[in-house]
């Protein structure tokens, strides 16, 4: 990005000497700072409120809230969770999510890193076109491809040990492949930008040592891009776990749905009891919230890696 304007350099040094502690955005004056703090505090509490409300009410007894209204206090219980878990067969849905998310993330990162490596390591004439091929695919609306993919998966047989439906449709494999294909563009883009920052001399000396292209990729480049891989893995786990559309249309056998799409089937059973909805929502949100709080730095840097480079 061409962010630095050439005119600014001399004066900048002077001001920096005067106010060395100054951060990028500058400090605010006192009265305005106070107003801003109050507004920010109110807004951020407003933003947290839906989550807090869901958590609080997930621990409340339905009959109690029905009798006293939601603005009351009391009726604490854990029953909503046990009931939601059993009635919604959450155990099964979570396992399905696991079966789909883990392989899809591994495949995506593996394939994307291979393309990214070739794009960064060599300067073929088709490099830019290749990047465009992957990146544009990432941005197409998935609904635009639904009908051919759906029909094709209905025709592709799979051995029964891979899919008990005997078809690509209604199988974890179909979903894993579709997710992988769709996420490749973004990951390839981020990884190739990252890999381009690796000095080329490293490869030259590796070549002199007789390292094959595969060894250069696997033993040289991959360890060096670990931070980017970690950030992308965090992001992709969240995205694929949250993926709703493909699972909804490609899997009609409810027992194979991942949790995010499984929500849709719980709707009818749950919607008469808001506290049960709350407990179910908290359960579904739990994995991503854990990822968010534990790996927040990776998550944020992964998201922004794509928009600003490296």
């Amino acid at each position, binding site marked *: *990005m061409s962010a630095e304007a050439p005119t600014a350099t001399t004066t900048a040094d002077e001001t920096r000497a005067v106010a060395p502690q100054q951060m990028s955005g500058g400090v605010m004056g006192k009265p305005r700072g106070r107003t801003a703090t109050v507004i920010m505090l109110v807004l951020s509490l407003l933003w947290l409120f839906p989550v807090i409300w869901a958590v609080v009410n997930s621990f409340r007894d339905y009959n109690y809230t029905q009798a006293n209204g939601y603005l009351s206090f009391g009726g604490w219980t854990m029953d909503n969770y046990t009931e939601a878990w059993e009635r919604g067969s959450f155990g099964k849905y979570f396992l399905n999510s696991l079966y789909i998310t883990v392989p899809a993330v591994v495949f995506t990162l593996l394939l994307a890193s291979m393309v990214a490596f070739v794009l960064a390591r060599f300067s073929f004439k088709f490099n830019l076109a290749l990047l465009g091929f992957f990146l544009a695919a990432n941005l197409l609306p998935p609904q635009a491809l639904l009908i051919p993919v759906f029909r094709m998966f209905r025709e592709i047989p799979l051995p029964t040990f891979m899919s008990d439906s005997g078809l690509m449709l209604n199988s974890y494999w179909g979903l894993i492949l579709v997710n992988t294909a769709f996420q490749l563009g973004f990951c390839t883009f981020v990884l190739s930008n990252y890999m381009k920052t690796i000095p080329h001399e490293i490869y030259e000396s590796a070549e002199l040592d007789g390292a094959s292209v595969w060894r250069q990729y696997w033993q040289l480049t991959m360890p060096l891009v670990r931070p980017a891989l970690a950030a992308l893995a965090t992001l992709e786990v969240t995205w694929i776990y949250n993926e709703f559309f493909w699972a909804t249309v490609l899997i009609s056998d409810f027992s194979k749905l991942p949790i995010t799409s499984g929500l*849709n089937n719980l709707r009818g059973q749950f919607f008469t009891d808001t506290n049960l909805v709350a407990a179910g929502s908290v359960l579904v949100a739990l994995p*991503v919230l854990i990822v968010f709080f534990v790996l927040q730095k990776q998550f944020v840097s992964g998201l922004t890696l794509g928009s600003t480079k490296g």
Partner: protein
Amino acid sequence: MASAQTAPTTADTAAAAPPSRRRRLGGRDRLVVFAMVAVPFILVLWLVWLPALASVALSFGKWNGIGSTSNIEWVGFQNYRDIATIYPPFWPAVQHNLIWLVFLFILPTMLGLLLAVVLDREMKGSRFYQTSFYLPVVLSLALIGFIWQLFYSRDQGLINDVLGTQVDWYGDPDVNLWAVLVATAWRHTGYVMLLYLAGLKSVDASLREAAAVDGANEWKTFFQVVFPVMRPINLIVLVIVVIESLRAFDIVWVINKGRNGLELIAALVSQNVIGEATRYGFGSALAVIMMVISSVFITIYLRIVFKEDRA
């Protein structure tokens, strides 16, 4: 991209080294490079680009999906004509997608930018504020539709409880689009804020300081110095908002499968495939309309990205 293959030295060193610096790849290496590109390439070709082309082809035919492709009755542009003239949900869907887009722009996108500008400063608790704004970004829109049921439910929702009203916020076609948009904005704001925070960090501090020394006030500094410098980010946010509005699907599908006031183009496509009627040609024509609109913005996006790449 840096021209990677220029030789830094001419020193002909050890005998083991290949004679030419611009060494060609050996047979095995060439095969490996080919495979590294070919496998992902074929996957994306098979599951994205070929289906995209197939959608275009199918949009000119009538097919209920039964039997082989030879059962397709080719009808030319009839599907498109039918969509525009005798398919009642189409124009409402277009209108809703447009409202979606305009709303996302005016409220959450602007708010996200504003939050980013304020939080970019040195401020006590900035991290806490940031965290609470982008917390919803990790939740899926399907789940968000679920969570907001706690506010919107007619009998048990908080809003009706507080206001003493009896509105079915998700069910009433006069209000449900707006209810859904508010829930969507809850997530979208944090996302935009995140993108702009990253963009602002990349703006050179000296630029701002120079403007301050020149006597520009903060307002002027932002609009005349900082904002123009962030042009690439602005464009990327623009493209993201357009594409998100066009793709919007999850939240309305989880509420009522995109009916009764919540029609969206993406939901109509799905209704024609996994709904009661399977009309592949008709659904494909809807899909192609989506594809055409998005391709304009994909082109813009690729141009920004590649321009930066070359710089």
